[in-house]
């Protein structure tokens, strides 16, 4: 290694190994102990390592103050800004959750058709664009007014699972026609036009129960606008057609109003009422009877039976008229139970107390 060093003109003849160079440059070799030719270098290195002069430290105060301010500003705001960041994140999450719940609630209300008119229309239009069928408001459905909706009822569910408009399209006009002709029991659709008359009957102060031919939903909308569950003390008196009767009220004629609502069968004649219901499902008889409903005691049922016996031919004639006046049934799934029950009713038109409905 010394060969090329010796030939390097910059190296000259100075023999400096790495150890000696490290000692000189680190200031560990005093000039007096240095080899010849390196003493001056040792002096130079010592001069470079001299103590700081006052000129070199003239800016110490300002520079240290600036450094301290920077260091403190970078340490303190970090701790102070983290909660702020967390708070912002929490607020964002709360806002998102609120927005999501609001959207869900609005969608649910729209699906139930419970939004106000304009809002329901807008929601229907918006949700229809994404493939969700939501009924429009009542204002935009002139063909099927739904008075039951004003009582806070939920929209009826159609057999196909489409609520609102589809139900009214199928049952609404038909049911209204039935209500006018009073020949057939209404379907279990709330707010049918046929029950406007029925709703007025308890309000007349006659103490009569709603007609027995009404479907449970009709009874709810017509005679029991608000309760849904009748108190026990009403068992002996006039039962305003509650949704669910307590057991003590059902001793003679169990009320099936609440039970039928859960079946949601697309019946037209109210066959879904309970088996022990001795009353016919004829609206004509209901108007004539003005008597105790299914929630009444046994004694009152006798009156109802006598009324039924007074006009034994009424059911058959009324059903014939109804069939003649009924528009053609729209295509769709036909309930075999309903058809069977109607056929049975035709076969035994005079016996309303032990009819096929009661023995079913």
């Amino acid at each position, binding site marked *: 290694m010394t060969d090329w060093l010796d030939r390097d003109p910059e190296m000259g003849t100075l023999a400096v190994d790495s150890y000696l160079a490290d000692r000189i440059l680190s200031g560990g070799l005093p000039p007096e102990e240095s080899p010849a030719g390196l003493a001056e*270098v040792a002096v130079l290195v010592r001069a470079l390592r001299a103590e*700081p002069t006052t000129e070199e430290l003239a800016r110490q105060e300002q*520079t240290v103050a600036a450094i301290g301010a920077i260091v403190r500003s970078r340490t303190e705001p970090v701790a102070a800004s983290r909660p702020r960041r967390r708070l912002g994140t929490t607020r964002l999450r709360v806002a998102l959750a609120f927005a999501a719940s609001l959207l869900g609630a609005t969608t649910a209300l729209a699906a139930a058709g419970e939004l106000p008119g304009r809002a329901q229309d807008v929601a229907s239009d918006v949700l229809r664009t994404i493939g969700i069928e939501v009924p429009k408001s009542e204002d935009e459905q002139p063909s099927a007014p739904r008075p039951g909706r004003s009582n806070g009822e939920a929209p009826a569910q159609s057999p196909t699972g489409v609520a609102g408009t589809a139900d009214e399209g199928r049952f609404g006009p038909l049911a209204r026609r039935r209500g006018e002709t009073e020949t057939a029991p209404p379907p279990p659709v709330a707010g049918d036009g046929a029950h406007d008359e029925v709703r007025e009957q308890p309000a007349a102060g006659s103490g009569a129960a709603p007609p027995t031919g009404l479907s449970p939903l009709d009874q709810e909308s017509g005679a029991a606008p608000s309760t849904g569950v009748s108190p026990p003390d009403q068992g002996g008196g006039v039962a305003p057609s509650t949704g669910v009767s307590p057991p003590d009220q059902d001793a003679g004629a169990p009320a099936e109003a609440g039970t039928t609502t859960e079946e949601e069968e697309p019946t037209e004649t109210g066959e879904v009422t309970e088996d022990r219901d001795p009353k016919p499902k004829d609206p004509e008889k209901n108007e004539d009877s003005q008597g105790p409903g299914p929630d009444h005691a046994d004694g009152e049922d006798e009156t109802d039976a006598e009324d039924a016996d007074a006009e034994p031919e009424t059911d058959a004639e009324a059903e014939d008229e109804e069939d003649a006046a009924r528009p053609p049934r729209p295509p769709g799934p036909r309930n075999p139970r309903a058809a069977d029950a109607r056929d049975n009713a035709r076969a035994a038109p005079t016996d309303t107390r032990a009819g096929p409905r009661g023995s079913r």
Partner: protein
Amino acid sequence: MSGRVVARVAVARDAEFQALLRAAQAGAEWALARLYRDAHPRLLRYLRARHAVDPDDLAADVWLEAATKLERFHGDEVDLRRWLFTIARRRLVDGKRREARRRTEPVAAETLASVPAPDDPEAAAIGAVTLETALRRVAALPRDQADVVLLRVLGDLSVEDVAELLGKRPATVRVLQHRALARLSRELSQLLVTR
């Protein structure tokens, strides 16, 4: 002094430095002042010997940049010096690049007056190697040799540290420092003979 004593002194010194560093990272001005008094003169001399246009401003910029990253610094005393000299050299190189792009900018008279002359007769007449004389001698070296000498003397950095900082191999750094020592020896010898 035995090796065990040296090790104990080194450990105690390192513990003292770590306490000083933690205080400085917390913003204690007394700790920052100690770090400043130890490192700032070295930085300033390095920048002056490397012909910085405004060594004082450049050194202040180095400290301000270091202050923004001091909280994340981990290491011992040598690491801190290496870090500071790395910042200083990078800023020095950036400044020289900017100067190179502005070739028409006139040089102030004060700057020309401060440029050391390798054969300063006044210093030779005095016969004493002062700090200014030493800086002028080192500044007269080629740039790489001056860098090696200054970083090894002022920064107390090893050959490996200097090689890493300069982006060169350790063997290259050793060659450079040997040439620098030989050149300084030759020039100083000639100066003494002339005197």
